[in-house]
């Protein structure tokens, strides 16, 4: 019975220093993998090692990264949101239809012109939050399965994206929005939309790690019954998480619209699976309760690094698909490995 002799547990051959270092490496494993991959690419692929390429990788990560934040929050809370991709597309479409100047665009012009920035952002966030709230209603109030509820939203929201503009696209957003994606306004070689994504990661990593809300989210993902018994308002926290995930997807859609200067009916299709891949590669457990947003960010960067490398080598795009699949498998394997190493540590 080791249960009654706790001292045996602290007896371990590892020095505290080795343990601390190992813990650190395990906690930030994706970043080490990213660094390795980037080094290998830089050494083996001609023209890879350039500021332009790196800033491109970061720029490509912006929209996917933001979308992955919302998804991560819900998965950490022990739920799921398959609708983030369609929600982003809907927000993008609504913004594009209101403010774009060709196609299905209605060319609304606000005075002064810069007002389009806060107004379109608020609309995108609101669209996402509303869909998130309907998801929350079905999951929390009607106690329906989150997988089914958000799968349904994934489908019907995409239908809405196609119906609203009658299959047309809306192109040409005003400069008051476009400047976020224009190279001329890059800060430290990084486009402004990527800075927005980075800011989101910092803010939500802080919320997850340092605030009672984030702590409760993690606790619920770990053991919902225990959290409920401990007096945590589990239903409220999950509702807020769904609304947040929706609003964050709305933000992703807003960035996507700005990046592509408009929206098409099939905008962003396939991003859901990439977001899932990034989240899993980033070390978030699909069982809930475990995950760090810094890892997710590294996961997103890893994905777009691989995309970029494949483009540079002019390999067929189908390779990306295959590599992505293998990467997800590897990530899950790695997770199991990490767990067994950790168990030996403590």
């Amino acid at each position, binding site marked *: 019975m080791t*249960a009654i002799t706790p001292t045996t547990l602290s007896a371990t051959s590892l020095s505290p220093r080795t343990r601390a270092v190992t813990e650190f490496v395990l906690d930030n494993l994706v970043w080490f993998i990213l660094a390795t991959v980037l080094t290998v690419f830089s050494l083996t692929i001609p023209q890879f090692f350039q500021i332009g390429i790196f800033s491109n990788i970061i720029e490509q990560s912006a929209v996917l990264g933001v979308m992955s934040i919302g998804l991560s929050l819900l998965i950490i809370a022990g739920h799921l949101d398959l609708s983030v991709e369609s929600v982003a597309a809907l927000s993008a479409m609504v913004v594009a239809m209101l403010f774009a100047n060709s196609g299905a665009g209605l060319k609304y012009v606000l005075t002064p012109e810069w007002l389009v920035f806060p107004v379109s952002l608020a609309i995108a966030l609101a669209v996402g939050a509303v869909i998130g709230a309907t998801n929350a209603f079905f999951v929390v109030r009607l106690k329906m399965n989150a997988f089914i509820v958000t799968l349904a939203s994934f489908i019907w929201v995409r239908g809405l994206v196609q119906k609203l503009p009658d299959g047309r696209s809306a192109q040409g957003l005003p400069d008051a929005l476009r400047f976020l994606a224009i190279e001329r306004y890059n800060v430290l070689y990084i486009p402004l939309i990527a800075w927005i994504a980075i800011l989101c990661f910092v803010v939500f990593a802080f919320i997850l790690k*340092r605030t*009672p809300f984030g702590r409760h989210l993690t606790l619920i993902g770990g053991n919902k019954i225990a959290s409920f018994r401990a007096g945590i308002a589990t239903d409220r926290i999950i509702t807020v998480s769904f609304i947040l995930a929706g609003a964050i997807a709305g933000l992703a859609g807003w960035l996507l619209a700005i990046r592509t200067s408009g929206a098409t009916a099939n905008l962003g299709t396939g991003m859901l699976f990439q977001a899932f891949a990034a989240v899993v590669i980033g070390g978030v457990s699909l069982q809930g309760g475990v995950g760090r947003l810094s890892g997710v960010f590294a996961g997103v960067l890893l994905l777009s690094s691989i995309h970029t490398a494949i483009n540079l080598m002019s390999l067929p795009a189908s390779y990306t698909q295959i590599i992505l699949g293998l990467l997800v498998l590897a990530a899950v394997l790695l997770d199991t490995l990490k767990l067994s190493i950790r168990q030996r540590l403590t």
Partner: protein
Amino acid sequence: MTEAGQPLLELKDITRRFGAIEALRGVSFSVRRGEVVALLGDNGAGKSTLVKIIAGGLEPSSGRMIFDGVERTFASPAAAKAAGIETVYQDLSLCTNVDVVANFFMGRELTKNVLGIRVLDEKAMEDICAKAIAAAGTRIPSLHVNVEHLSGGQRQAIELNRFVHFGGKLVLLDEPFAALGVEQTRRGLDMIKRVAAQGIGVIVITHVMAQAFQVADRIVVIRQGVVAGDIAGDKTTPEEVIRMITGDAQMGRQASA
């Protein structure tokens, strides 16, 4: 404020039906401040249902519950907790994905104000947790280790230390020593006595007769949804209690009365 003589918790004719099944058929008993009551009964006697009604989360079909001088029912564990009822459940109520400190303060995290934002006060929580766990003589290698890496005994120690620290007015323990070894059980029983000495009422659900007799001032036996026996611990014998649990109780009670 209530008078000293008044019971802390009084259950009057509590019933609970699940469809056609009557889990509780009119349970009445009371707990005074500083009193340890052992609640015994066979599997399916209605103990767990009773625990849920007292701890919040399940409302009785009929009957009255008077806690601290006020008649009330608790819609959620949070409501019961706010009123001062702490519960340690049979299946451990810990989140194994976070560390010892986070579990200790689950649901009542300490915060500090940083630029108008409520931020977790990790330092303060760690200090309090370390003190509480050291005071109880529990050895845990690090407070920052995730609970999944701790043994069953260490986990239970966190739960027990949690209720000792936060106290409240009434503590409900549902099979608290299921995962504990001999030494830790002894320490757990001491903890119960210490908590009761502070004037907190304690209800211990157990089916280990020896534990009940060691710690309880009074023994209440539930059988088929009713109270089959309610007697001071020093005025009965394990044999008699077993007769109450199995149903030869009426006979046994009458014989001893």
